[in-house]
């Protein structure tokens, strides 16, 4: 099992510009230390209709209550402001920003949980002897000798598809064929209940794929790959 940088195509070049936008870095930084309700606020606002901040404060009263600490309210305000900036980019562009933010957040949280010599990387392919390489790289990988993780990221449960599940599970089984351990996971910035609903009718193998939903994102900060 070998890891390799994906060759940048036209889509990747355009997407790299979005990934490098300070708004992605700012949103990621805020969401990494946010609680589940603050992350839900970001999800709602980034895909919302209104860009009126007061309306969103009204929808999430427990995040802006005067009894909360100043630090908590300031974080919620900052998340609201950043999310409104994403929402204000227009439908097609905001979709790309949301994807970039979920990937960057996943990378950031995985770095917290990475141990020893583990390297957390983006946009990597995984190569196996005698197996044709997949076209699409994995969003984030955790690379350690003998044991690694491949993680794909989705904004919503609707993004869970047979193709995504097959690619992750195929990688896991190819790794096992080489006596290597590859943890495969799908990070979804959506409720785990919705992910379960989406998976119920999927015939693609998914029992060995770890699904990490909005409520459990902090689990990424615990080692995903056991120390070998």
């Amino acid at each position, binding site marked *: 099992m070998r890891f390799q940088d994906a060759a940048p195509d036209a889509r990747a070049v355009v997407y790299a510009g979005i990934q490098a936008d300070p708004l992605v870095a700012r949103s990621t930084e805020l969401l990494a230390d946010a609680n589940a309700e603050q992350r*839900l606020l970001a999800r709602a606002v980034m895909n919302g209709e209104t860009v009126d901040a007061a309306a969103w404060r009204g929808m999430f009263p427990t995040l802006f209550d005067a009894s909360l600490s100043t630090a908590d309210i300031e974080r919620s305000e900052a998340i609201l402001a950043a999310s409104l900036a994403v929402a204000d980019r227009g439908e097609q562009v905001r979709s790309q920003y949301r994807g970039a933010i979920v990937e960057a957040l996943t990378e950031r949280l995985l770095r917290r949980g990475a141990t020893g010599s583990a390297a957390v990387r983006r946009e990597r392919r995984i190569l196996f002897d005698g197996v044709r390489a997949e076209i699409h790289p994995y969003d984030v990988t955790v690379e350690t000798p003998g044991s690694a993780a491949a993680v794909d990221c989705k904004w919503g449960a609707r993004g869970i598809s047979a193709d995504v599940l097959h690619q992750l599970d195929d990688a896991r089984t190819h790794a096992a064929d080489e006596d290597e351990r590859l943890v495969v996971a799908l990070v979804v910035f959506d409720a785990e209940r919705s992910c379960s609903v989406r998976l119920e009718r999927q015939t693609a193998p998914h029992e060995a794929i770890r699904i990490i939903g909005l409520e459990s994102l902090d689990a990424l900060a615990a080692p995903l790959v056991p120390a070998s």
Partner: protein
Amino acid sequence: MQRPAPGSPIPTTLADATAAALDAYESLAALGEEVEDEWQYVQDLADAWRSRIVDVADARGDEPLPAPRATAIARVCDEIALIEDPHRAIDWLSTFPQVVLVALGERP
């Protein structure tokens, strides 16, 4: 289906709030059904979240609702009434019940 206009009334009890949320949710699901390839997913998703909200109503329906939480329900109903894109509606079929449940003091 006629979609409710923004300016939803503020509910006073938890039962009123869940009833209003479920009404708004029906309209959202109807919009999401326009994406033919996702018709089954829309049904499954709506069923799952509807059941969760009904469970909360059954358990706590008689409780009064503090004004900020009641207002939150009305405002999020207003928000989804603005949605015209069926694809966005599908995304909100998951988001809306989460926001409603948090406003009611429940975990999604």
